[in-house]
């Protein structure tokens, strides 16, 4: 019996979004179907990976991944350059974790200095991510957005409690924005609506549905993303058609699986490979759910997921 391929057609399309400047600019999104089903939809741009760097040395990263950056991680500019030149990063994601009041509590001025150094060290697009502290992020990202004017960065994360300041700064300085909500389809949509109501172009938004790591609630993220994608493509909801960001590094690299030595847990096997496979499989899960942009830490895991994306295209 001949098999008639059951194709679905999609009413909607994901916005495509270009960030960075010059010939190194990167475009994500643009697909008009569910992930990697090229027999019924077109995938204009493959998912891309940004390598994470920080404004302070990553003292809280497990050795397995920290040691990769020994020698450069004391200087954000050198670290960024290392990612671009030695690791071939297409995007650098600068996390200003040192500005968190519970961490080094660096000031907005300190952050501006770091942002300026990093931007002049590399020509690939830069993402500027705050520490996750609601009030401090509003101050820091506002200053960082001004310092990065003209570079068309992605800045974030704007959350329900602080999006106004961050969106205003993004409009004034021509940046894209990450809108993060907490693992909920409706909250994600609501935040996108609030941001566009401020006059921000919805095509400049990237949605962060809040990532989780393999074994630590990843099935929630996975299903929330699948539902967001169906709302965008099947139900053609324009407020859900923004590209999806998965910022997996902080979740993956604080799991026990990425840090506990083999001597403590012999049944879990080699620590080195365990951390890398944890980040790789987490990333693979996110791209199958529709992720357009990943932020990751271990170059071996990045290589693995890039190879996987290559095989999927």
């Amino acid at each position, binding site marked *: 019996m001949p*098999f008639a*391929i059951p194709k679905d057609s999609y009413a909607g399309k994901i916005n495509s979004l270009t960030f960075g400047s010059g010939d190194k600019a990167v475009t994500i999104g643009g697909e008009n179907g569910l992930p990697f089903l090229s027999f019924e939809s077109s995938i204009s741009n493959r998912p891309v990976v940004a390598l994470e760097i920080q404004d302070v040395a990553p003292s809280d990263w497990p050795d397995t991944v920290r040691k990769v950056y020994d020698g450069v991680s004391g200087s954000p500019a050198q670290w960024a350059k290392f990612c671009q030149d030695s690791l071939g990063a297409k995007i650098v994601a600068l996390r200003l974790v040192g500005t968190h009041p519970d961490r080094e509590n660096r000031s907005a001025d300190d952050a501006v200095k770091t942002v300026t150094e990093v931007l002049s060290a590399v020509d690939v697009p830069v993402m500027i991510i705050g520490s996750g502290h609601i009030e401090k992020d509003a101050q820091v990202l506002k200053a960082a957005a001004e310092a990065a004017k003209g570079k068309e960065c992605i800045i974030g994360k704007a959350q329900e409690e602080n999006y106004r300041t961050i969106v205003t700064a993004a409009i004034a300085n021509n940046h894209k924005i990450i809108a993060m909500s907490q693992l909920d389809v409706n909250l994600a949509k609501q935040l996108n609506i609030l941001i566009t109501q401020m006059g921000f172009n919805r095509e400049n938004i990237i949605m962060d549905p809040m990532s989780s790591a393999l*074994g630590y609630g990843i*099935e929630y993220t*996975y*299903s929330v993303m699948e*539902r967001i994608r169906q709302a965008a493509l099947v139900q053609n909801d324009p407020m859900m058609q923004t590209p999806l960001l998965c910022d997996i590094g902080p979740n993956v690299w604080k799991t026990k699986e990425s840090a506990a030595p083999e001597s403590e847990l012999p049944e879990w096997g080699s620590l080195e490979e365990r951390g890398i496979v944890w980040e790789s499989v987490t990333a693979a*899960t996110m791209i*199958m759910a529709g992720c357009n942009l990943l932020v990751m830490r271990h170059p071996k895991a990045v290589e693995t997921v890039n190879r996987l994306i290559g*095989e999927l295209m």
Partner: protein
Amino acid sequence: MALSGVEIFKNLPKTNCKKCGYPTCLAFAMKLAALQESVEKCPDLSEAAKQFLGAAAEPPIRGIVLGPKGIKVGEETVLFRHEKKFVNPCPIALNIKDTEGSDAIAKHIADVNSSEIDRVGQMLRVDFVCVSNESGDPVKFAAVVKQVAEGAPNAGLILNSSNPASIEAAITHCADKKPLVYGANAENLDAMVNIVKGKNIALGIYAKGLDALSDLSEKVKGMGVNEIVLDSGARTAKEMVEEYTMIRRGALKKSFKPFGFPVISFVSRDDSTFEAAVASLGIMKYASIIVVSSIEKWKALALLTLRQNIYTDPQVPMQVEQKIYKIGDANENSPLLITTNFSLTYFIVRGEIENSKVPCWLAIMNVEGLSVLTAWAAGKFVAGSISNFIKESGADKLVAKKELILPGYVSVLSGSLEEKLGDGWKVSVGPREANQLPAFLKARV
């Protein structure tokens, strides 16, 4: 095609005899429509009705039981796990080539036998071994199958050979273990079917491409084999995701019978981490059995964890065990906090406590997997039950100063809880959100 309850009801005797265990024929019809009951429960069904309903009630993807432990594969009913649970977790099978030396094979067997891990209370393991007849030699193949069947008596077996003579030689060593015979194709079909037919042994069939696979599946079915496992020859990541999607859609949405069977996926890559990433696609996108070329402990841990995550019931919250968890180097002077056993709540609270670097005791109370506010609203996370749990948990032996820190959202409970606990207990109110825990804990030190 699925029938509605009313359509089914029309074909029932309408006597409300209760012999099926339901009060009325309509109630039974509704269960049948939801695929939660089998028509055989009705003893008075006419032959015509039986045939009609039997065909309609057949699950769109057949379930097949394999291996000595009777692991069921297939019988999936949805494309997306948010619609309904994925039901039968895909077994992971380790591939062993019969060209490998006896010592190497013994090591593979040991790896399989020691692959069990405990993950949030579930025991997970590599359940199957696929023996591949690389040599083409029936004698060699049979010897390795024998070695595996004896060495890993609990593992399910996949006999992978396109040579019927090899299958015939090997199957004597495992016929009682419900093996999967894999490797029937257009050329060897008659001989392969003859081996399995009437023996209740499932047959894995291979044809490159979906049209050829559909033809082969129909042919095998026509020859009287009902337990079929499909391989469309998808080997690249792209082929896997696209072809498995088409097969599942065909079975579920188009009732395309030739594809109403479980799917077997072979992933083999030079790099083991990359192989794990490819196998993970199979777990998410519709493989029913996944054959991998190695199962290092770290790799099995990642794949079995992903499988557990993807196959959890989205309607039933994941729960963690009720007990007091020690975080960091907690001692009798460390703070004691309490929250509920919803796994996300636990993971997030635990993560933030770890971030704070302040060693703590974290009491996790069983409220059937609800979050703090929901459990409180449902009357499960209230002064009486919390007090009973803390008293029975032996918390008073862990901490010198009897103080319990309550989530900020249920601060209203602090007075009554302190009263119920008595015995010198003090109840303090913590922050509302987990991300405020580091600051809260550090301020106390």
